[in-house]
Every structure is written in structure tokens, then in C-alpha cells.
């Protein structure tokens, strides 16, 4: 029995407890403890982050001469840490009043607990995959587990979840085809054999499996143009489920891409691999796909009027930063990309928790029907404030560090256009997160929200824990970068030269301890000036200047609809919904194809076949 066995058994136990006790009122609390136990089991393997080592599970099968094995290395450990923490905090959030209300509103709490536990288990299995076949098995488990979580709320989520599973099945077919191509060359599914054969393949032959695998795993990552399923599927999942999915689910695609692109093919090969008959390489293609994945979904998020949709679209966009940093392939870029996985999980879960708390109290996430909630829900506001600073990538939160690493890498690698693309994406992020916090928490409180209270502690505690993590890992990014350095050593990337406050190397230096110190010193000077200035007088929100008008509570002065009209006048015509159009075109094309092939096996019009055959025979006779 290795620590990995303990971890997988604990995860299985969590699923069993969820199945048995998920409907009990204390079930959520017990599950929270079992997730904590899983986290403890993972910590037994914390030694993985220091040396390039693997812990193998005693679980293994041999089918048709192929042995299936599971093992953990630093990369798996890092993703598993995020997965289990996301499961832990989501379940903690669900365990209290949120779950009660969810059940009272007709939701199936038991199924939600089971779905989250199954998701964690299947992700842990995927992360432990030791060969290509187990990778595919884990991949399918993860796909179906997240389908369960997406669909369980019913209503509009059904359509979104079915859209997801359609994409996921298409992706799985592509992966299967890619694996079949590799198996055809090697007769083996092990990583070393696959790596050997992929190294020896010629450029033209390498493209086919590379393209198929990247497309297949890119579906989960929601890379452009395969991203349309994600936002609606995540947003319509019930609160903590959306937080869990938004935090980690699509990062499984990144994990698989790391395995394929970096461990099997090797990033050096990807950088050299030319696109046939052109001057660009496979790396350029991936980087630009990542860059467009940043820009388009982020600016789509800017137009959303539902807080959950806005966050879900950002989840797609932030995935682009991870891939962009990773394919740069240097120490800084790959560290930034990998660190962004952790950072994104922390602030995205905090943001979803905060939005779910608002939905819990007000019953709506419509950005046009909220406002001024900071006076009623200050802790949720605080979590959202910390979260959006992280999401926008501003100091002193952790999102700044990972984005800084990616930017720095793009500059060092001589990619000014990609750098501009990344910055444009950040601009869109800042604009839309301001819209989010303004429309929900700032401005004028609506009369119907006059009497609401802060969310209960079972809901505010997880988001505040995450806020602390977002701040502390922003202040001391070295805490996360030590795991990243372990991953880089394991998968064969250049290793980042980190320190507690960031990094101090020839490629650039960043000391967040100083940055945050100076920032807070600035705040401190402002606070000293403000509070030592003498008497302050707090005035009412309606005691405000509006060109001399007398303001009253029955009129709304909180402008939320048609946010950024000036910007939209400039960029509004650029929203052409081309990807949605492309999707519907593919859909109708496939429909036409299936309709026409139906004719062959249904024999609806045998006369036509007779006619075509007769014409062909006549032609053959005449010619």
C-alpha cells in the first residue's frame, strides 16, 4: 500500500459516503472531513515536489497484454492539490445553509454531493495515469463526471450539459484516433515508448497525432474555436458546483496537454515543428490560439449581464494565459502558466462563492437587478474584491505574479504581438470585473434588498479562506513557485530560479514582498492623512450632488445596463458571433450529411438509386 493507494481509497470512500449519507443533514460535514483526509493523504506525498520522483499505485491491470498503471509525480500532485482543495471548499460551502436552501428549492443535494465526490475521484484517477490508455480512461471518467455535475440542476443546464457532452465526445474520438495512430507505430501505450516513437516520426507524420490529441484535450480546455460549450455549462451548475468546475475542471485539459506536448513530444520539437508550406511553427499556432482564447472570451464576458456567465467566460479566457505561458517553454513562461492554474482556481472559486452568496440572499445573479450590496454583505464584497483584483492580475494578489511571469517571458522570447494580445485580454478583464463588482456591490442599494443580511458563516468562511490564500500567495509567491520548480524539473522544462517574494534571476526579478510593502505603505500614508486630518462627517448616500437635484430612494441612480457604451460604440460592431455561426454551420452540415446517409440504410427512395445506377451504367456503356 503506497500513499497513492491511500489517497485513491480515501477518495473512493468519499464517493461511498456521499452515496450513503449525502442526503442526511450532516452528510456535508462528514464529506468535508473526508476531503480534508484526502488532503492529508496528498500531503503524505508532498515529498514529490522536491525531487523528480514518482509514487506508483499498487493498483494495476493487465488487459490484452497492456498493463495499466497509475502513478503520481510533482505535476499530478500539484493538480491533485487544487482538485481536492476545490472539492473540500465547495463541499464546506454546500454543507451548511446553502445546501438546506438548495434542497428546499427542490434541488437534489444528494446528487450534488455525489457528483462533486465523483468528479474529485475521477480527476485523481486521471492525474495518476501512467500510460496513454489510463490517460484515456481517466479522461472519459472526468468527462462523464462533469457531465453529471452540469446536468443535475435541470432546466437550462440540460441543454448546456448536452452541448458539452457532444463536444467532449467529439474530443474523445479525436483523442482515440490520436492514440490509435501512436499505437499503430509502437504496439504499446507506455509513455516512454510513445515518446520514443513521437521523437522519431517525421514532420508530416507527427502532425496527425499531435493535432488530434491537441484538439481532443483542447475541448476540455475550451481552446478557440471549441469554447462555446463552456460558459453556459459552468454558469448553470448550482453555486458550489460552478465554483468547483470553474476552479479546476477544464484544467484537466491543460494537464493532458502538458503530458502530450511537453512529456511526450517535447517542447523543443513543438517549437521546431513547421506548419507545412509556411514559415510558422506549431508553437506559434498554439500560442496564437491561446492568445485568441484570451481575447475573444474575455471580451464576450464584458457583454454578459449574468454574473455567473461573466465569470464562466473569464474562466475560458484565463485558460489562454496558462497555455500561452506554457508553450513559451522557458523557465518564466512555463512557471507563469503553471502557477496561473493555482491562482485562477483560488480566485475563481472565491468569486463564484461570492456570487452564489448573493444569489442565495437575493435570488438573482442578474447584474441589472443588484447594486449597493456592500452595505449588507461586506464579507462577500471583500471576497469578491480580492478575487477580482486577482482575476484582473493586479498587485498585491496572486494573479499578478503569474501574469507578470507570462508577460516577462513573452518579452524575453521576442513576441511583442503576443504580448500585446495578452495585455489587451487583461484590459478586457479589468473592464468586466469592474462591471461585476460595481453592478453587484457598489452604487445604490435596491429598496427590495433593504433588509437582507450577510451570508451565513458556512458560506463566507470558504470564500474568506480563499481570499487569504489569494493574498498570501500574492505576497509570497515562492510558496507556490517551489511546487512549480518541482514540476519543471519533473517534466523536463527549464527550472525557475525562485525566491520567497517571487524570483531573482538574470531574466528578471520580482519581489512581491517589496511591491506589496510599498503598496501598503502608500495606503498607509493615505490613511494617516485621512484619519489624522481631523473631523470627518459621514453623509447619507442620497445626500449627494446630482446637479442640484433632490435625490430619493424610489428613483434608481445606479446605472448598470449598457455598461461602457462609449467602448461598445467603438468595438461593438466587432462582435459578430462568428464562432456561434460556425458552430451552427457545422451542426447543420452534419445534419444534412446524416440526413443524406439515412437514405442509404432506410431505403426511402429506391427509385432514385435505380435511376442513378441506370445513368451510370448507360454512361459506362456509351463511353
Amino acid at each position, binding site marked *: 500500500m503506497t500513499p497513492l493507494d491511500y489517497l485513491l481509497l480515501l477518495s473512493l470512500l468519499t464517493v461511498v459516503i456521499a452515496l450513503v449519507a449525502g442526503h442526511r443533514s450532516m452528510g456535508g460535514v462528514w464529506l468535508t472531513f473526508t476531503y480534508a483526509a484526502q488532503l492529508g493523504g496528498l500531503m503524505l506525498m508532498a515529498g514529490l515536489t522536491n525531487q523528480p520522483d514518482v509514487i506508483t499505485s499498487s493498483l494495476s491491470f493487465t488487459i490484452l497484454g497492456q498493463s495499466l498503471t497509475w502513478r503520481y509525480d510533482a505535476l499530478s500532485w500539484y493538480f491533485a492539490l487544487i482538485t481536492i482543495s476545490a472539492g473540500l471548499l465547495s463541499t464546506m460551502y454546500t454543507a451548511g445553509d446553502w445546501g438546506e436552501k438548495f434542497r428546499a428549492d427542490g434541488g437534489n443535494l444528494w446528487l450534488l454531493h455525489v457528483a462533486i465526490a465523483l468528479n474529485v475521484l475521477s480527476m485523481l484517477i486521471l492525474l495518476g495515469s501512467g500510460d496513454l490508455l489510463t490517460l484515456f480512461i481517466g479522461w472519459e471518467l472526468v468527462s462523464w463526471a462533469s457531465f453529471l455535475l452540469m446536468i443535475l440542476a435541470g432546466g437550462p443546464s440540460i441543454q448546456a450539459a448536452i452541448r458539452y457532452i457532444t463536444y467532449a465526445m467529439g474530443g474523445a474520438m479525436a483523442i482515440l484516433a490520436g492514440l490509435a495512430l501512436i499505437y499503430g507505430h509502437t504496439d504499446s501505450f507506455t509513455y516512454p515508448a510513445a515518446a520514443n516513437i513521437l521523437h522519431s516520426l517525421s514532420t508530416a507524420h507527427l502532425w496527425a497525432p499531435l493535432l488530434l490529441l491537441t484538439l481532443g484535450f483542447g475541448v476540455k480546455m475550451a481552446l478557440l474555436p471549441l469554447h462555446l460549450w463552456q460558459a453556459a455549462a459552468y454558469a448553470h451548475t448550482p453555486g458550489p458546483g460552478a465554483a468547483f468546475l470553474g476552479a479546476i475542471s477544464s484544467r484537466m485539459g491543460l494537464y493532458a496537454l502538458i503530458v502530450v506536448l511537453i512529456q511526450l513530444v517535447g517542447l523543443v520539437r513543438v517549437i521546431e515543428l513547421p506548419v507545412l508550406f509556411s514559415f510558422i511553427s506549431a508553437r506559434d499556432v498554439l500560442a496564437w490560439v491561446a492568445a485568441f482564447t484570451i481575447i475573444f472570451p474575455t471580451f464576450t464576458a464584458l457583454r454578459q449581464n449574468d454574473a455567473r456567465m461573466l465569470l464562466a467566460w473569464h474562466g475560458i479566457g484565463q485558460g489562454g494565459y496558462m497555455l500561452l505561458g506554457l508553450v513559451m517553454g522557458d523557465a518564466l513562461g512555463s512557471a507563469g502558466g503553471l502557477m496561473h492554474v493555482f491562482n485562477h482556481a483560488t480566485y475563481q472559486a472565491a468569486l463564484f462563492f461570492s456570487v452564489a452568496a448573493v444569489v442565495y440572499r437575493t435570488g438573482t445573479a442578474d447584474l441589472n437587478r443588484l447594486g449597493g450590496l456592500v*452595505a449588507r454583505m461586506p464579507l462577500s464584497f471583500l471576497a469578491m474584491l480580492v478575487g477580482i483584483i486577482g482575476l484582473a492580475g493586479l498587485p498585491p494578489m496572486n494573479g499578478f505574479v503569474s501574469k507578470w511571469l507570462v508577460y516577462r517571458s513573452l518579452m524575453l522570447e521576442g513576441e511583442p504581438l503576443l504580448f500585446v494580445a495578452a495585455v489587451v485580454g487583461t484590459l478586457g478583464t479589468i473592464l468586466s470585473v469592474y462591471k461585476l463588482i460595481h453592478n453587484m456591490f457598489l452604487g445604490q442599494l435596491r429598496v427590495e434588498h433593504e433588509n437582507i443580511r450577510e451570508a451565513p458563516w458556512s458560506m463566507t468562511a470558504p470564500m474568506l479562506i480563499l481570499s487569504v490564500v489569494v493574498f498570501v500567495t500574492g505576497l509570497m509567491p515562492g510558496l507556490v513557485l517551489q511546487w512549480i520548480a518541482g514540476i519543471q524539473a519533473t517534466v523536463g522544462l527549464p527550472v525557475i530560479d525562485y525566491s520567497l517574494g517571487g524570483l531573482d534571476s538574470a531574466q528578471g526579478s520580482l519581489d512581491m514582498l517589496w511591491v506589496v510593502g510599498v503598496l501598503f505603505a502608500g495606503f498607509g500614508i493615505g490613511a494617516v492623512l485621512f484619519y489624522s486630518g481631523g473631523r470627518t462627517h459621514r453623509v447619507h448616500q442620497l445626500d449627494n*450632488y446630482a446637479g*442640484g437635484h433632490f435625490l430619493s430612494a424610489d428613483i434608481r441612480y445606479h446605472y448598470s445596463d449598457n455598461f461602457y457604451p462609449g467602448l461598445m460604440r467603438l468595438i461593438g460592431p466587432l462582435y459578430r458571433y462568428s464562432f456561434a455561426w460556425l458552430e451552427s454551420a457545422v451542426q447543420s452540415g452534419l445534419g444534412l450529411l446524416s440526413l443524406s446517409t439515412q437514405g442509404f440504410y432506410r431505403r426511402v427512395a429506391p427509385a432514385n438509386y435505380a435511376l442513378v445506377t441506370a445513368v451510370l451504367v448507360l454512361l459506362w456503356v456509351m463511353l
Partner: protein
Amino acid sequence: MIKDIPIIAEQAQQPRRTNPLAHVFDELMNFARSRSLFMLHYCTGCGAIELPPAMTSRFDMERLGIQPMVTPRQADILLVTGYVSIKTLKRIILTYEQMGSPKHVIGICSCTVNGGMYWQSYATAKKLDEYLPVDLYIAGCMPRPEAVISGLQKLIDNIKHGKSDNWKDYYQRYDHYLGNQQHLFGNNWQTPTDVIGEAREYGLFGPQTLGQHTELLESVQKPLQPLEMKL
């Protein structure tokens, strides 16, 4: 009912100050204040037409340290440039009360002095200083930019020498001003600003701050809905 008021209010009893440098600080503060005046962009009537030339390159009030400001919270000067209809006066009082102290009111044009050509109008307030403590009048119909500039220089002089304290008069004799306002606007008149509370907070409570008019105000006042932080 309406009485004439002196332009410079009498000083209320100030506690004796023990700091030997207090006077020096006062001089410094007054100098700094006089050289950095923000003028609220709130103009009424036809006198406003003289302000663009006074503000821009020809007469250039910015060389005196005077700049327009968009909100009353950060403004120092309220210019009332022309006839004041009763409806406008309500807004002027609302805006004036929202300005942070120290604040100064300048009445420009004859209409603010005595109603001017609108003397016979039923809808025009005749004397501005019955409703607000006016620091300075610039008479004329309308005064030319030179006159506006010279009036502003006079205000700067007054501030520098500590002679422009009329804003305190509003707190110390609030009952008097409120009475005149109620006489004009009716008994239901109220503004969102809690002037009495501010007077108490800033230590400007005078013998005439409270009176029969403030009693009337308290009896009709509808408080704004509370909006405090809750945990």
C-alpha cells in the same frame, strides 16, 4: 419677519488657544486656502456668460489659483451669477449645504443684491443674503470679467486675512436662515443635509442655531432611509 443681516458675522466665543504657534499656523493655513480656491460649476441666470472669459486665457482666473470644480464636496466657492428664482434657490441651498467648510458664496449681478430688474417678479428671491451667508457681492448688470476678477481678488484678500468667515454664520444662526427659507418655500421645506448635526460636530453651535424654525423643521422632517454597514 425678514431682518437685514450684517455681511461679516460676529465671532462666537472661541476657546483660548495655548499653542504659541497657533497664530503662525493660522496665517499659513489662510494663505494656502486663499491661493487654492475651487469654484463650483453651478451658475444661474445671465451673469454666467461673463465667466468663460474670466476663466479662459484673456482674464485667466487660474493665475489666481481659482479653478472650476465639478462637485460641491471639493469646492470652496459657490458663485450665484444672476437672478435666483425660487425653484433655483432650493437647489442652491441644497448644493451650498453639501459643500465642505470653509466655503464662500459670491453673489454676482444686481439681481442677487436686490432682485434687480426682477424686483416685481413673484417667482424671484430678492436678496440672496437672507437665505445664505454671502461673502461678497459683485454688482452690475452684468459685471464685466474685470469686475469679476477684482471681486475674486477681494475674496482672496479677505480669506488671507481671516476675514471671510461667513460660512460659520450659517451654523451659528441657522434658525434665522431656515426661517427665511421656510417663509419662501413653505413649512415642509427640508434638505438632506443635517446642518444642526454638523454644527454640533464642528463645534459651531451658536445661541441661534436652534429656534422655532428648527423645531418646525424637526416636526416635518422625513429622515432619509438608513443605509449603514451591517454584519
